[in-house]
């Protein structure tokens, strides 16, 4: 019976089963700031009261309950914590590049709470990041949504445990290069990518049926049905079909974006977000109608063939066509100034302040399925907040303090030269890998995989 429970637990897709330790929750009153709620307009000279990690009151002349610290926000801007819908920060492994579908791997298994990138992100006002599997596979691993509780030693404490499951998909050049050109297996072309997806989902349907059959036969007297093979890969694909997991798909070209929309329609999948989406502007109405939106770069392209047809107006076009649009980093460097990236949508497309700010707050929250908890300053939401000197969309904006659940994890006045949590006992200077920092991290670990496999194969990194 116990064994059965264990199997059931695994089949229900229970993750790491970390004992859910209580993460720190803070209380604070921020007074007299310009509060940019994002969803409910801007409030001049207003106060925000946070108790036990939750926004309790937004208004004027609020009093701090006894024992609650008051921070003077006069002349400063208070906005919701920035959310990065595409990042690889704080992951020990990014790519399990070895098979076209690796839906069974879980980024939650390899979260590293010591990575300094988390602190740097906090210094840029980012409180939540979507730590994604890389783009080497048609179906990559399951991602982790992280809350940047810097100083935690337990990975479970920086995983946002109440966020829904998400998974990485990738179309186009990366999976066809790694598997087709690199390993001479399907997919070698965009058509192959679609075939891998359709075959995968079809197999998942069969898998689900086999288990349903076994589970109903198992209890019957004289049952002769033996258990099917356990396959977490297919089980995860079945969970996608059942609407339990949000797909976040790396994509560039309009044709392949439209292809995936059609695949999703055919299999009844509705939880779908496109990542990068450089040609999204060509299929904006379709994306708006059928998906949970697109997460894009502000102005980054031409790093490989499929990313040439691009425009800095992409985000604005998508937004004005009704697509839920977010701006992401995919980089340990860009994550430090996403507010600046969001402001580019005003230069290219003339979006309003609220539209621009929603691209790094409530919109990515919607895409991650956490907009009922974070992404705006509203009573009842989790108190992830940033205080800015200067308007966050101004070129002169500098984040001053960053809070997660009402706990201050970054304060520019208390910023030490050396903020590392973990220092090596045997290395005077720790090695720094410049290329991983400079480029997108989508294909991190893939070149190492290929070097091991058949000599240096990659020239392009992205």
């Amino acid at each position: 019976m116990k064994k059965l429970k264990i199997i059931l637990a695994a089949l229900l897709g229970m993750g790491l089963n970390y004992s859910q330790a209580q993460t720190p929750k803070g209380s604070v009153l921020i007074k007299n700031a310009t509060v940019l709620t994002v969803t409910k307009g801007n409030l001049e000279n207003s106060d925000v009261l946070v108790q036990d990690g939750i926004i309790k009151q937004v208004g004027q002349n609020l009093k701090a309950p006894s024992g609650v610290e008051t921070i003077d926000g006069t002349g400063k801007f208070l906005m919701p914590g920035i959310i990065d819908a595409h990042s690889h920060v704080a992951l020990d492994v990014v790519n399990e590049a070895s098979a076209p579908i690796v839906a069974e791997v879980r980024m939650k298994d390899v979260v590293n709470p010591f990575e300094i990138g988390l602190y740097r992100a906090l210094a840029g006002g980012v409180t939540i990041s979507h730590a994604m599997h890389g783009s080497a596979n048609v179906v990559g691993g399951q991602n982790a949504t992280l809350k940047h509780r810097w100083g935690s030693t337990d990975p479970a404490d920086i995983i946002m445990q109440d966020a829904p499951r998400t998974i990485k998909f990738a179309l186009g050049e990366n999976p066809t290069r790694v598997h087709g050109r690199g390993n001479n297996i399907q997919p070698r072309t965009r058509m192959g990518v679609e075939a891998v997806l359709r075959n995968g989902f079809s197999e998942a349907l069969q898998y689900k049926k086999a288990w349903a059959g076994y589970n109903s036969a198992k209890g019957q007297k004289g049952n002769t049905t033996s258990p099917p093979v356990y396959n977490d890969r297919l089980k995860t694909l079945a969970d996608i079909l059942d609407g339990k997991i949000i797909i976040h798909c790396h994509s560039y070209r309009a044709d392949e974006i439209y292809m995936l929309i059609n695949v999703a329609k055919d299999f009844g999948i509705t939880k779908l977000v496109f990542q990068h989406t450089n040609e999204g502007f060509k299929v904006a109405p379709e994306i708006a109608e059928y998906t949970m939106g697109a997460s894009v770069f502000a102005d980054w392209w031409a790093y490989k063939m499929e990313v040439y047809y691009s425009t800095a107006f992409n985000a604005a076009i998508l937004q004005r066509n009704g697509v839920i649009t977010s701006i992401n980093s995919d980089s340990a460097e860009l994550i430090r100034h996403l507010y600046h990236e969001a402001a580019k949508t005003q230069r290219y497309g003339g979006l309003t302040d609220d539209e621009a700010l929603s691209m790094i707050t409530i919109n990515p929250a919607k895409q991650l399925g956490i907009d009922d908890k974070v992404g705006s300053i509203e009573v009842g939401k989790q108190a992830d907040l940033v205080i800015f000197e200067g308007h966050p969309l101004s070129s002169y904006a500098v984040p001053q303090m960053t809070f997660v659940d009402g706990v201050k994890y970054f304060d520019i006045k208390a910023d030490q030269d050396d903020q590392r949590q973990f220092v090596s006992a045997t290395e005077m200077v720790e090695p720094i890998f410049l290329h991983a920092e400079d480029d997108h991290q989508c294909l991190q670990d893939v070149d190492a995989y290929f070097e091991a496999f058949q000599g240096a194969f990659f020239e392009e990194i992205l």
Partner: protein
Amino acid sequence: MKRQFLKAGMAGLLMTGILAQTAWAQSDPTGKRRVTETYAITNATIFASPGQQATKGSVLFRDGVILGIGANVQLPKEAQLIPGDSLYVYPGFIDGAGLTGITKPKDLERPKDFVSSAPSDEIAGITPWRSASDQFSISGNQVDDWRKAGFTISQVLPDGGMIPGKASIMVLGNDRSVNVLLENTALAANFKGSRGMYPATAVGVMAKFRDVYQNTTLALDHSKLYASTAGVSRPEMTPTQTGMAAVVQKQIPVIFTVESDLEARRAISLQKELGFKLILTGLENYETVVDLLKSTGVPVLIKLQVPDDKAIKSQKADSASVATKAQYDRVKEAYEKALAQASLLEKAGISFGFSTADTKPGDALKAVQAMIKNGLSEKAALAALTTNPAQILGISRVAGTIEKGKMANFVISTDSIFKESAQIKHVVADGYVFDYEIKKKTAKENGKSDNGAVKVDGVWEYTSETPAGSSGGEITITKEGDDYSGTISYDDPSGGGKISTPIKNVSLNGKTLTFEFEVNAGGNTLTVTISGEISGKEMDGTMSVAQFGSFPMSAKLTTPSLTF
């Protein structure tokens, strides 16, 4: 029929022959047989178990079993005596999850139709059916060195991929005995991905581990159903599932090799999810998980090694800027914390053992001494070397302490074992006695003059081992004020006799003496550098020649100069 009878007869004859030989043969052409199997260590200081007061007395053992211990043990006539008057006797050390004597099996050749996204288990490093016994040899890699360091029992892991196979417990005894104590005592696992195939990374390994485990559970269910019900399809247990069965049935634990705190957490999370018994080994950095280890009660084997001090030693605080100094301090703090980690385990009440995998036998005791200097108690240190691993490995009944009826495994040292000056003189493993040379070195050795400085002046006789053979000569060093000068003699490269030449750049730094001389060989002048560490009247070091490499050299101070 006749033939069969004949065969049986032959077999019978052969059997008789074998039996007769065991029982009667007196001659031993190898000359290796012992004169007696009975030994006694007499009048020694005996530390029978961690935390117990030392007693003075004798230890009698025969055929690898302790017969008696104490001051009043009757010593039979056939007992060979080991005088222990100035010696200290400890239980033989035990390590868990070692690689002593293990040779990694050859990687399989990839088949022509190899698919890297779905390789066979065996190629992907999933070989739970393999046994460390098949990879172990008592004459193998480092067994002698580890025995010399005091280790008498080693649980060895097989070498291989993410699930390399099952552990065996070996006694490091005689090379003609069967030295297996227990086989298949645990399943080895780690987070190593396979090169260029699935699973290639730690995240893939964790997914694959779940897959292997769950499918073993299901295969066992299937077998049970098949056994009880007619009409069920035939179960096909794969070798992997057969190899994993004992783990899934919780008969044996999984020994997960985890270096860091994060890896320890990963192994523990897999355990919580799947429910197997777990032992963690190889921990190097575990300060942040001490509480977790305590609360989960997972047995722990830490790496028998302390971090090297190269980073600390290379700090040049005098010329450093304030920012650099702050960084120095953090590295220093990290280093000190790393040394004190073992003591944190003791404070938390976690009984841990050591793993010798990937560590140096020569540095083993030094590592333990460093842990003691940084807060670990001597009692806990001895327990970590003896009783704790015995308990973790499930062999407490026969090993871990010096008690009547237990295995005759001892470490016999010249001083209390955790003193820096202690040297191991004998190791007894499985009742076999191994003797080691004791280097004479004490603070009052002759090589040092009264003010504590090393004395080098006088005539040294040296030998060096080069690819061309062994050669040697004399080094004469004279002291003039604070400087040294002298001559060296060596074999004439052009043959015939010795040449003597002056030595240059002589410097004595602590105990290390370095100097150079020039050799004229075939018209070329080569500079030879000698560097040696002096201990008493002996010097051990290297002779190096640019372009040719360096060769071991040793020397003895035969005629010290008189000091006034």
